[in-house]
């Protein structure tokens, strides 16, 4: 049976290189038909917000990486509901075309169901 792998994305999109490099690792694994599930947690929830204008700080948009997910067979991402609440992010404001966003309430038991966790 194939291993179940989860990628945890915990960083806001432009504060740390780990946000971008995490998504790059997810896409690389997906390109090898080993797509992990994706859980956006804590400040990682900010990655899902639309209307980002990173050009103002000389950054490339991270949303392009998220938009590429369905092309690599990732059609669903999970987001921690409490992380959204704590940051005042309305779940209705998060949308990635081609990707279904599912809220997770009990992240602990959710994560425990995976064989391997990649932490970014």
């Amino acid at each position, binding site marked *: 049976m194939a*291993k179940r*792998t989860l990628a945890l994305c915990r960083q806001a999109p432009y504060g740390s*290189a*780990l946000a971008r*490099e995490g998504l*790059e*690792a997810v896409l*690389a*694994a997906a*390109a*090898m038909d*080993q797509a*992990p599930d994706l859980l956006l947690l804590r400040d990682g929830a900010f990655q899902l917000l639309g209307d980002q204008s990173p050009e103002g700080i000389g950054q490339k948009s991270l949303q392009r990486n998220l938009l590429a997910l369905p092309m690599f067979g990732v059609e669903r991402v999970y987001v921690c509901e409490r992380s959204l609440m704590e940051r005042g992010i309305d779940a209705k404001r998060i949308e990635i075309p081609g990707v279904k966003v599912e809220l997770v309430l009990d992240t602990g038991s959710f994560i425990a169901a995976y064989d*391997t*966790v*990649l*932490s*970014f």
Partner: protein
Amino acid sequence: MKFSLAVYSAPHSSQSAASALRFAQALLAQGHQLYRVFFYCDGVHNGSSIAAPPQDEFDLVGQWQALQRQHQLDLVICIAAAQRRGVLSEREAERLEKPAANLADGFELAGLGQLADAVANSDRLVTFGG
């Protein structure tokens, strides 16, 4: 048990990289296998041959190299992360027209697929730093 490690932190800036090395030493000493150490993000600096810490400080790069020689470890540095941060093999330095190469012996540059491969082929992946 078969382990792989993912190292995201540079040596000499946080304890994470040193903890990864000590974890690697401990698991090998206990008879476990180390399938691969994958250096990603700032962790790529662990493979820089030109780091020159003061003599009374821990030489992390040298310790990784010694462990690699002793156990024929697969120490893989993510090539994309390394290019961004200036850790280049002779070949990459030439290809990218940069004036110097600094990839330490015992480490190799490879793609992110090696991380996915490590996940697929190890019982445990342990992440340090980030």
